[in-house]
């Protein structure tokens, strides 16, 4: 019982801390601070309809670059920690073959989901969603392939190349801002024309970056899944 008592005490103490927050929060009625600036200027500054995207990709682009890095590094780390035996034949004999329906269904679905993912990240500046959500959709397409065909293997070389180059291009686009616009313009989306507000080819580099992010996140998540699924060394 004593073993439960300390955790209980700690959780109760935490409860009081959080209670203090809960009882003191007044609901917002207006935008303040930087949010207000974003709401007022975001559209004209960056030409993105989706303000969250504008913030994520441009205003706080450095964060997103970091976020991509985190995911990339987690993928690298997982691959490193779960490195597999090279010799063992991963024929997947043990696994049951998936049902015919699933196979056919996935063959149909995979391209659609992939397309959907691509749609999400290309339209990131116009509608909800973006690189991460689109990437996740692509990864789920890959996941479906795993389910449908247990012997399915992702082509690591291609994946690594996509991952690498989307990342490098992302950094390069950022650096282009420095080169073209000046020292304070890392990741500035305005190195491309902002275009017509509300169209696909608008908001400068945002669609481009989100496409790169989408590809990168998609391949990374897929690799993580693949590594988690694979056999251990």
């Amino acid at each position: 019982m004593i073993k439960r008592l300390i955790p209980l005490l700690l959780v109760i103490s935490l409860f009081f801390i959080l209670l203090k927050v809960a009882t003191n929060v007044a609901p917002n009625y207006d935008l303040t601070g930087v949010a207000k600036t974003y709401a007022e200027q975001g559209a004209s500054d960056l030409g993105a309809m989706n303000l969250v995207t504008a913030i994520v990709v441009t205003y706080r682009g450095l964060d997103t670059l970091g976020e991509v890095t985190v995911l990339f590094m987690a993928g690298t780390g997982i691959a490193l920690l779960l490195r597999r035996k090279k010799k063992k034949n991963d024929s997947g004999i043990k696994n049951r073959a998936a049902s015919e329906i699933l196979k056919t269904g996935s063959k149909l679905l995979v391209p659609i989901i992939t397309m959907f993912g691509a749609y999400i990240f290309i339209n990131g500046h116009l509608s909800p969603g973006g690189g991460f959500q689109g990437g996740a959709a692509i990864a789920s397409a890959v996941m479906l392939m795993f389910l449908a065909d247990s012997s399915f293997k992702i082509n690591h070389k291609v994946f690594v190349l996509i991952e690498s180059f989307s990342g490098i291009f992302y950094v390069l686009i950022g650096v282009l801002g420095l080169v073209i616009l000046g020292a304070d313009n890392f990741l500035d989306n305005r190195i491309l024309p902002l275009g017509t507000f509300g169209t696909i080819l608008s908001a400068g580099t945002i669609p481009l970056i989100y496409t790169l992010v989408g590809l990168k996140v998609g391949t990374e998540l897929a690799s993580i899944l693949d590594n988690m699924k694979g056999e251990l060394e």
Partner: protein
Amino acid sequence: MVNPIYIIAILLGLGFLLPSINKAGIKVTVTIFFLGIIAVTAISYQWLSAFLIDGQQAVQIFTAGFKPPMSINLQMGLNEAVLITLINFGALLGAIYSFKYFAENGIQALVVFLLFILGMNGLVLTRDIFNIFVFLEITSIATYILIGMDLRLKSLSAGFKYMIAGGIASVFLLLGIILIYSKTGTLNLDGMIAAVSAAGSSQILFVGVFILIFSVVIELKVFPANGWALDVYEGSDTGISAMISATSATALLFVLYKVLPLASIDLTKMIVIIGVLTFVVSNLFAIMQKSTNRLLGYSSIGQIGLLVFVIASKDILGDNFEKIFFGLLISHFLAKAGLFWLSGIVKAEKIQDWVKIKKHPILIFMFGTFILALMGFPPFPSLAAKWSLVMILAENGSFLWISLVILASILEVLYLFRWFGYILKLEDSEEKVEKPQHQLHPVYIVTLLLYVAGFYITRSFDAGLSINFIPLAFVGILFLIDFLPVYIKNTLVMIAVSYYGYILVPGLDTLKLIFALIFLVGGILTFIPGYSVKGKRIGFYPVAAMMYVGLIGLIEAETFFQFFFAWEIMTAGSYFLILRGKRSMSHALSYILFSAGGAYLILFGFALSGAETGSILLTSLSEVHIYATMVFILLALGFMTKTASIGLHIWLPGAHAEAESDVSPMVSAVLLKAGVFGLIILFIAMRNNDVSNLFYILGWVGAITALLGNLIASFQEDAKKLLAYSSIAQLGYILFALAIMTNVGWLAAIWYSITHFLYKALLFLAVGAIVLKLKTHKMYEMGGLIKKMPMSFISVLIGIIALSGVPPLAGFGGKWLLYNAFILKGWYFQGAIIAFSGVVAFLYLFKLIYSIFLGPIKDKHRKMTEVSVWYLIPQYLIIATLMVLSSKPRMILEKVGLYFKEILPENTVVWNGDAASTFVNGKLFGVWDPFYIMIIVCVMFAVLLGFLLFASRKATKVEMFNIVYSAERPESPQTAHFSYNMFSHYRKALGFLVLPLVTNFWNFITDLFHSSSDFFRKFYNGNAQVYIMHIIGFVVFFYFILNGGIF
């Protein structure tokens, strides 16, 4: 200037690139990897030099073309430049060191390491709170992977614990960020700080700031929420531990520095407490630690605790903050990285196993450098930093913090020097140390950097009155030429000491001249026996020279800082010197503990004085009034640890007795005078303060020291211990004489200082040489050596005559002056004790000469010959000096008397020819004419000796076998020796006085620390879940304290 954004771009770009160019071959990838790190190091260095040399102003770098708060901004100022240069260069060295570890784990390891560097650079540069979160995650995740990637159970479980702790810290951080954002509407740190301080009291902000700061504090691995961190240090590959301890801790400390302005005063105070607590507790727990890497972990956490304390005290430290912070940080950074790397090279799991580097002087040298740098010995940056820290804390009256910092520092000294002792003194191990070059190079570089940084940072603290670094450079050269044979180095050292004396002496006043001569002449005399040593005597000359450099530095010092600097150099040098003895491990440790303790007391005393008068000159001690008593007690205690007054003496006998034969005179005849010198400076400065009661007490302490020292000396069976206790007693006389505070008293003290130097050097040289020859310290294993070693006999004879204070030799003059002094002062009781202890001294002096030289000779010593001529030369030089001084003391004493006349006009000595006289109220009180005494005594001696020889011409020799045991063999052979337990009957009468009360007291203290360390560290029970409890408990506990209750 290259935009710092490129640091991020280069590291990230290369990180993304490396996996895809796997095909190009390992060489290409590795080249790119290193080029990348070199490039970012170069960029950061370019900024650093711009700030330092070209006076560049701090710049803000915005991203995305918008100004904050809309976008994230980076800041590049001097602090940032220093830190990222340090981090990137450290990471470069770390990459070289860990290269093999990375290579085993493939290209991904290189990628992760690049991103690890990226994370740390980002943490330092960014000025956006959420960006800090992102970079923190990058750094942490990279660290997790680097820890776990070798797949050992240890590293995996350590990594897992780290991840849990990191996970909790990051949810707290997020919560904190959003709470503050909700009230301030910005994520930009500067905007946030401005808004928070403008916002007034808000419950949400209160909780938000608290949680935010505590999440950073948890990441900094403070006590008690740091069990996981210790496991990480222990379980990880050493290369990675080095990076965690050095580079990422640096980045995290700077994060704390950046977010701390958000905190309220109370919260800041709390961080101060947590920092100090961490420093103390980690060092306490470390003293029972045997596992190398865990010990280093404790030490790291302790150091980080100290740095947290410094950061949180920023407002108090004011302008000196940067110097203190960087001084401590750079020392910790370089030394800890070096130690972890060394640990990886040595591959010794337990600290005792480090003995295998015994045969590798370079490794020992580097190890010594690192631990000295950690503890804040000169010439390393930490010394100046700690110094300044204590000075400023004293100004603010934060005495509790000073005491705790000092306590923790002493604990640090305990375990680090004990470790060092193990290396040099434990049984040799058969194991060999492989020395992989690529791993050693980084260690060489950090060693070198420590000295360079030490030079510049110390210089920056001591601007104007610059410390004389030339002698120290000479010590450095001695280390470099240590491969030369002894006679070259010996000659070189003697020339150097003489030359230095030649430069130094002309500018000195009488007092300094006397001590300079003791130190310099003592140096030359005690180096002469060195010629008798064959081979290289690795390590001897640099450390001996170091001690003398310190001693001379004391003479040269004009400010507190210079004095303390020299004092610490002397302490370190003498410690290494003492440690060279065969069985000196524990004695050297207790020596350094007392010395370090004493040094910290001196530091504390100086700090108090500086706090009151605002001056750092040694002479300003005279202006202290409010703190006078405290300052006096602290300084006197500090100096008395060196003079080994009773209660603080237990280090001395072992240290002096177990030292090498020619080291004993160095430490006994010469080194102890440093304490006397300090006391004199203190007494001169504070004579007019209201501390006369304290002088009275010190007089008693001196008298009792004299009595007990002599008594214990009489009961010794070990010849060198006997001399060592005798030194304690003699220093008791000096303390007593000084405390009298009259002109004649001080004459006595100076005279004792000079003559004790001479005869104790003489005796230690003579006895040391015999001990070396006979290979035993025990007097009952000697005897009858008069015929084998007549020259030594004469030395010892003269030595004991001089020491005993019988006419005509110098000791008599000392007694005459001393007796005059205490009688004139009216200290009859103490005087009686002094007089009585003079009588006691005869006991051991008699025993010394009798049991070594007289009586039957031991069978195995029949073929013994005279000791090495290199020991005899200094002895006879000393004898000659003694003779001259004994007959013509006026040469010195008159000048000394005049010099002190201004300071202490009371009871002066008047000289008339060679004769000295004292007066009371104009009436003649006592007269001493050494020259006539000398002549008379010599004549008497010649007559008596002639008569004795004549009378005993028919005496038979007593042989070993003249003693018959009637076929019985004595159980312990020593009982059969005539001088064994010679004074047992006196022991019955006075034995109660020599009960080891003091020893027991100090043993009790030691045990107390050890057992509490062992008991409380069980708190870290290795269970990750318990660590979670610690973390949450830590947060809620401090929250409720800050909040003043639950609601």
